[in-house]
């Protein structure tokens, strides 16, 4: 997947880090100190659909195959810049009852983007 550097307009991953102290959430979130709220942005011209990103689904590869051959209805489907690889994150925080909770959350951080 491509990293957005301000020069490319093609689908890429934009890094966005939020420090919990900066948003006043460090009183209830014990760890980690912040969150990588990465997101995908950029254009997906039809010729790169289904090519970027290492973890695109078999499903989108098949649709792309039909699209290239001009089969209806796939030739009208527009490609979209989406997360193609996500990863889990663990969080340690206080809940409303002042219990300490350690939770593992799947698909929390965007690692790669690609054209669907």
């Amino acid at each position: 997947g491509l990293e957005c550097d301000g020069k490319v307009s093609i689908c890429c991953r934009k890094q966005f880090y939020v420090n919990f102290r900066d948003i006043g959430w460090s009183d209830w979130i014990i760890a980690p100190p912040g969150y990588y709220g990465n997101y995908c942005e950029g254009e997906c011209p039809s010729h790169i659909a289904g090519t970027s990103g290492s973890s695109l689904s078999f499903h989108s590869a098949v649709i792309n195959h039909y699209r290239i051959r001009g089969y209806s209805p796939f030739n009208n489907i527009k490609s979209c810049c989406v997360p193609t690889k996500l990863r889990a994150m663990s969080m340690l925080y206080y809940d409303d009852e002042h219990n300490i909770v350690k939770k593992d959350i799947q698909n929390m951080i965007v690692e790669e983007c690609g054209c669907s």
Partner: protein
Amino acid sequence: SPEEGPASDCPSCSLPKLQAEVAGFDNQLVEAVKRHILNMLHLKSRPNITHPVPKAALLNALKKLHVGRVREDGRVEIEDHSSSKSALNEPEQASEIISFAEAGPARDIVHFQIAKEEDGDLSLVDQANIWLYLKVSNKSNRSRSEVTIRLYQEGDGSQAISQKRVDIKRSGWHTLPVSRTVQATLATQERSLLLKVSCERCQETGVSPVLVEPAEKDASHQPFLMLLVRQSDAHTHRIRKR
């Protein structure tokens, strides 16, 4: 952009333009991140922390969690004792909850308010233990003492829900398994657990379980409940893998 036609079907394709044009885009992103985190934690709003847990109690309980250090990026570092190195682990879909005891209606009764979750996904308890600190009095002249600790669920008959015979040489932590009781408590609306702690031969041997100390002079020895829960689908998957 509408003029460009079909590109508008895909919201993320128009992001670069938005970013350049809309003032306060970063603030909107931060708000979106806040909502996302709360959604993923099944919380309606951020918890209101009115009286933080004493640091000594927090540090002591964290040492007993099943996880290593949560890194800056949310990955967890686990100590590998065989090679004395640490490894990075992809977290599973699991939750660990430490619930500190609060004072109950009597001195020997402790109260645990287990986290409330609206979607009820805390339904499968893998493990639940009460951690209790047994203090040996300095005046005790015995070299070792054998005592029996029993836990009773308040208002639920005279049968102990958990018991343990302990051979004590010095003060220290002891665990009593309470998985079945906690599983039943999670099925209730209140998710509140009242436990009566009894200790056989404690008085005569100079041993005393540390319960809730109002003055917080012994906060690091406050009893706590630690439970490991899994979402139901993750649980069945794990069983199959084994």
